[in-house]
């Protein structure tokens, strides 16, 4: 893994068409999420301000994706929703990776009883079905965007911890680490200078693959009514559409866009992440 240079990564990446498409799609969605406050007026999301609009209107020139049961523009909800879905996905991933890496590095490096204890703990979390745990946690904590982020990260760090620990164990045995130790390097120095740089690519790849999982979890929690009630998100749109009876009314424009958005973003992240993983881990290359 250390033999992969930066230009090598870029060259391989450019050859991978699907990953490139994934990246472009992601940049498009990121731009939409960042520009959302300028693209969508807050009033378009409020039921009170939409009182004069027709309800259940089909897509037309005025409302590109039609309106919902309260007369709100579905297109506006779609754009605003991308913001929450991407934000929660990214933040939850950052925390997931931070907890997982910390546990993995400490366990792999400390060894002995601390390693055994931490791994036992990790195994417990790995076995417990994570959606029911997330549901129970979210129900206890109450609804809010930071609670959703907390719930996702606290339930999804174990696989990262295992991955990082395995990598730390192999790096630890390398000659240059022995050499650094012999020269009097402290534990902290060894971790910072030798372990982290070697584990970082793996962490990066696992982070890219953790984002789509976080986004899917946020969507599911929102759909189950455990998301932030004050912010539009794709999962919340789907929940409202379902509760308002969009399916029996055949109001496909209400529940189609949010789902397409989720699938597109998740697929793009997965394609990009898999390519990254393949580049950084040559063993996967001829798959």
């Amino acid at each position, binding site marked *: 893994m250390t033999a992969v240079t930066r230009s090598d990564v870029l060259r391989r990446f450019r050859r991978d068409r699907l990953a490139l498409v994934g990246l472009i799609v992601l940049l498009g969605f990121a731009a939409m999420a960042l520009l959302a406050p300028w693209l969508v007026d807050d009033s378009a999301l409020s039921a009170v301000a939409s009182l004069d609009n027709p309800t259940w209107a089909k897509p037309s020139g005025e409302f590109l994706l039609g309106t919902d049961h309260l007369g709100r523009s579905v297109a506006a909800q779609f754009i605003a929703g991308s913001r929450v879905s991407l934000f929660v996905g990214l933040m939850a991933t950052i925390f997931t990776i931070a907890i997982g890496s910390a546990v993995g590095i400490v366990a792999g490096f400390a060894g002995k009883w601390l390693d055994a204890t931490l791994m036992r703990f990790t195994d417990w979390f790995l076995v417990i079905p994570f959606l029911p745990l997330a549901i129970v*946690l979210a129900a206890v904590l*109450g609804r809010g965007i930071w609670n959703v982020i907390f719930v996702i990260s606290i339930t999804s760090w174990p696989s990262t911890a295992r991955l990082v620990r395995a990598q730390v164990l192999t790096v630890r045995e390398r000659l240059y680490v022995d050499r650094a130790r012999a020269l009097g390097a402290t534990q902290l120095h060894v971790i910072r200078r030798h372990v982290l740089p070697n584990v970082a690519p793996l962490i990066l790849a696992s982070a890219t693959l953790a984002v789509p999982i976080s986004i899917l979890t946020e969507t599911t929690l929102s759909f189950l009514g455990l998301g932030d009630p004050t912010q539009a998100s794709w999962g919340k749109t789907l929940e409202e559409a379902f509760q308002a009876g969009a399916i029996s009314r055949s109001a496909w424009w209400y529940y189609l866009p949010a789902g397409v958005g989720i699938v597109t973003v998740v697929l793009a992240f997965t394609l990009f992440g898999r390519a990254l993983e393949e580049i950084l881990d040559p063993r996967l290359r001829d798959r």
Partner: protein
Amino acid sequence: MRPRFVIGKVLGALSTLVFVVVVNFFLFRIVNDDPVESMFRGRNLSADQKDRLRQQFNLDGSKLQQFGAYSRELVSGNLGISLQSRRPVTTEIGEALWPTIALVGTATTLSMVVGVLVGIRAGWRRRSAFDVSSTTLSMFTYSVPDFWLAMLSLGLFSVQLRIFPTGGLEDAGTTASGLALLADRLHHMALPCLVLAIAYVGEYAIVMRSSMLDTVREDYLQLARAKGLRDVQVRRRHAVPNAVLPVVSLSALNFGFVLSGSIAVESIFSWPGLGQATLEAIRGPDFPMLQGLFLLFSAAVIAANLIVDLLYGYLDPRVGGR
């Protein structure tokens, strides 16, 4: 299998179960020191009512005493009273259990069988048209949220095309019995079951495929070919039995996913199982019910993991020993 291996796995599963019980107990006491306050957030209760509730939920005494009381109740099979229906949680769960077992059991089996078959074919002929299309499709189904797939198929097949009923366990007010009733129920179960199976088939296909790719390079396949076995025989007798091992360990994990997926999918098809019960408990919020459901879901997945671990040890002597 070595006895040590079996005992180790059983103890591991038991420790996980104890951990779940501890989590289940303390989770509802993290946020608020007084669970009655957090359970009935936003409801007006008199001090007298609160006292009675505290007694009912074993909330007097120290945390350790409370935990002792909670564990004793648990062992004797008492999970408390549902706040919504005022009936014992065990009764509520017992009624919702069978629909979910039928649904999740069928969906898990279906996705496993189809996924493994697809993975075998795709991995055996790498980069063939079948491989490329099935892998792309697997990635796609992996990205689709199960509940959205459920909404789409409900809209398309039940509302538009009217091929399947829009929900429930059976036709409302049905007088059918015997085989007719079974057929009616299967008709109701078909769509949610297909949705769950499609949502989780991709994972099996991908894992089986990459396991086949690893196996294809093994020397014993060369040997089998050198013996003069036909391609089909090499695949069936030598490649598949070895390649299927990782799928065995995946199946426990995936069982957990299908079980979780059933929460939203059941609610959409108003399938009266544990999933719908979970959503109703969230709406409440009905904490005793949530606690009971979480315990049951976890115990089911822990048991599935234990079975799979033992099966793996039995199938692969390098892991379990003779």
